[in-house]
């Protein structure tokens, strides 16, 4: 009780009656019952029951798309569940908007920083309820409150009047935490909140979280860093495919068991057979020591002629940046890139597709990066290769159209009239148009950024088939996908990225879901693992 009281006055000097009572009891503090969330045809959460207690740090684990983010967003009132109910201290609560969540003392620190860069630290910390009266802000009180909260998170050295944009990323994240504490949370949710922190800051955050736990808060902690979870969490819940798989107490499961809980999806795809390869083919694409700011660290990899190399790992570990760097989009990339043994570091996409290099990139977001939606299918397909169909100054329509029709047939793009807008096609066919655009350039090296996201199973299989055909014809393919299934089924080799570097390269029978997930989480699984559990 007293400890909890000591938290409140630092925030605003007021205590909220009723909030400090009922720490014990048998009903869980926060409960979600039968929660489902449907986005269009996709079930992001499937009848989830979830509960967490006071005085505890509860970690939520799961791979990409497991439903963690949706779970948090529902608690924070950012999205409303399709079905199910939310209970706080055994009473049902309606949380339809973020304000409702705040009123209940549910505070969320999201992955993306939510600070206003051009406002001061104090302004940001007191954003939701600035002290003052009659609509005027009492700046002195605001500064004092900010100072107290910064002191509390161990950042007394940060000047509350400094603009947020002048702070380094790790400080900003601490300000974000201070801001959250200022809202007097009862349930605090941290979504990857430590991803940008320095080691010293992480220690401070641990200490704060332990304090808060002692003060009676319930803390939900989402992180991809296994060692953090081991160090912090009292309880872990594993999610998979929108379902709550299991909740267990700290130390009752080994790393191997946790990984196994996280994976284990049914295999539904059919992949073309991989060719047997006694020895590695000569590299068509060789990347050495590629670095870019803090996002890419010393990446080296090769893709052989006729080989499909998969890029794996959790979202945002530098895969996207790697592909963009190879394609000449990023400025200030250090390191070397060779294509067929010749130095080939493009300065722009135009150079990357030139006959000297002949590279192609299927970008991440087909609607904004791959296609010109209102323009015709024909114009889109020929966009990267019009230069090849000119007679003098003019486009040779007949030659261009013949080639476009050929590619449309080869990829079986379902389109009535190639002159109709590409926006009228289905997602799968739109993706085929993007691929068709680059087939027209006869690229030697094809980079793909998650090409099968959001398209139907049938088209996916056609794309796998096409990739294998291209590889068999001698094309080198580097294939980033968030779907582990595809890494296993489609790729001859797989490189897993973690924190901007290649964590591990898997080949042949080593390409298993266990290995992929373990590498993606940056943990080592020993086969016999006597030491694997230590620290848990």
């Amino acid at each position, binding site marked *: 009780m007293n400890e909890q009281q000591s938290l409140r006055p630092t925030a605003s000097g007021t205590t909220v009656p009723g909030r400090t009572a009922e720490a014990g009891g048998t009903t869980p503090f926060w409960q979600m019952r039968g929660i489902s969330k449907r986005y269009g045809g996709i079930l992001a959460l499937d009848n989830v029951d979830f509960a967490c207690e006071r005085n505890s740090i509860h970690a939520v684990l799961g791979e990409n798309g497991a439903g963690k983010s949706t779970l948090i967003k529902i608690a924070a009132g950012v999205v409303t569940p399709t079905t199910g109910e939310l209970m706080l201290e055994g009473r049902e609560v309606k949380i339809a908007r973020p304000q409702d969540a705040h009123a209940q003392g549910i505070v969320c620190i999201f992955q993306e920083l939510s600070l206003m860069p051009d406002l001061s630290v104090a302004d940001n910390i007191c954003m939701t309820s600035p002290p003052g009266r009659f609509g005027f802000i009492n700046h002195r009180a605001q500064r004092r409150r900010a100072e107290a909260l910064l002191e509390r998170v161990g950042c007394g050295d940060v000047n509350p009047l400094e603009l947020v944009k002048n702070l380094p990323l790790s400080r900003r994240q601490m300000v974000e935490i201070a801001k959250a504490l200022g809202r007097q949370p009862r349930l605090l949710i941290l979504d990857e909140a430590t991803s940008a922190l320095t080691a010293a800051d992480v220690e401070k955050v641990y200490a704060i979280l332990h304090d808060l736990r002692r003060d009676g808060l319930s803390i939900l902690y989402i992180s991809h860093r296994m060692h953090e979870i081991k160090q912090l969490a009292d309880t872990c819940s594993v999610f998979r495919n929108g379902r709550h798989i299991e909740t267990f107490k700290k130390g009752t499961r080994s790393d191997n068991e946790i990984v196994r809980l996280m994976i284990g999806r049914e295999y539904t795809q059919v992949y073309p057979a991989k060719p047997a390869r006694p020895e590695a083919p000569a590299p068509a694409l060789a990347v050495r020591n590629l670095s870019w700011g803090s996002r890419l660290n010393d990446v080296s990899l090769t893709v052989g002629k006729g080989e499909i190399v998969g890029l794996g790992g959790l979202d945002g570990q530098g895969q996207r940046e790697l592909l963009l760097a190879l394609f000449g989009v990023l400025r200030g990339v250090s390191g070397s890139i060779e294509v067929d043994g010749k130095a080939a570091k493009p300065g722009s996409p*135009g*150079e990357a597709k030139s006959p000297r290099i002949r590279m192609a990139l299927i970008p991440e977001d087909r609607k904004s990066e791959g296609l010109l939606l209102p323009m015709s299918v024909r114009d889109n397909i020929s966009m990267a290769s019009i230069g090849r169909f000119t007679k003098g100054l003019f*486009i040779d329509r007949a030659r261009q159209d013949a080639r476009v029709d050929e590619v449309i047939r080869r990829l079986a793009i379902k389109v009535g009239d190639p002159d109709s807008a590409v926006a009228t096609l289905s997602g799968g066919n739109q993706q085929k148009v993007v691929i068709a655009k680059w087939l027209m350039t006869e690229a030697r090296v094809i980079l793909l950024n998650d090409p099968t996201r959001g398209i139907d199973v049938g088209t996916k299989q056609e794309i796998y088939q096409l990739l294998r055909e291209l590889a068999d014809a001698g094309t080198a393919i580097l294939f980033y996908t968030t779907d582990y299934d595809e890494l296993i089924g489609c790729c001859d080799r797989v490189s897993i990225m973690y924190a901007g570097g290649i964590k591990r390269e898997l080949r042949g029978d080593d390409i298993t879901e266990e290995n992929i997930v373990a590498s993606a989480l940056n943990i080592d699984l020993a086969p016999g693992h006597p030491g694997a559990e230590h620290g848990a």
Partner: protein
Amino acid sequence: MQAVLKRVDRPVAIAFGFIVVLLLAGSLYSSSFLSANYLLQQLQVAAFLGLIASGVMLVILLGHIDLSIPWLVTVGGMMSTAAAGWWGPEWAIPFGVFCGLVFGIINGLGVAILRVPSMIFTLGINAVAQGIMVLHTGGFAPQDHATELMHWLAVERVLLGIPNAVFIWALLGCAIVVMLQRTPLGRYIYAIGNREGATYLSGVNTKLIIITCFAISGMCSALAGVLLAGYSNKGYQAMGDPYLLPAIAAVVLGGTHILGGRGTYLGTVAGVVLISLLASILSVMQMPEAGRQIIYGCVIVGMLMVYGRGQKVLG
């Protein structure tokens, strides 16, 4: 016939319809509105606007805007007459257009390389051009008489009584239509207007395309200035001031999307004729200047609202 009708988009059809309505309404007021002479005279005036609008249309198709028109027109007019005085009459037209080209390239560099929003950068260049023209006439008096060739191009009618200026516009128009429809450059212009990022990722040199379009726009404005100087026999300051809003309005009334990516040259022609006709009818009706401005503005806003309805489909 059906196919032709299908290819003409709605805004273009509306603009042409509106032209017919204006002519009919005018003919009720005075029968001379439908006479060949009156119509040809309208076309002559429209030709100057048409030249300017041609260049602006390319820039708007990219999703940018060129606000340096007024003083690039003036630069074209004043520098051509000055060049005639300095080096002889044969230099007049090439030098006037060349000056427009230089300013256009500067616009393009600012937008494509420095990434300054075109609205700001071209407005700044407009002011710079104004300052340079003021300097140019300060302290000494360069020649401001148009050469005979300029006058001949702008005013005379050699063929079938059609003003020469109309032929120049037609020639430029044909070149732009061919460029937009048949060359990679045209394809890239529409592509950039639709989504510059996707076009860049297709390996297109988007910066070069943007610079080219601004350069063409600068040349078109300067050429219009040359002809205007020929028309009034004199290059003078602020001669381009009345052309900014009409040029942009003509392009947009002709159905070119103000955010780029969609539009036809036929529409721009319709828009130019429409704007010229409207201005002429209002002045024939002796509408006071204030009333003219109000009607002018209302017509533009009104027609844009009509178009806006039809364009939600792909938005």
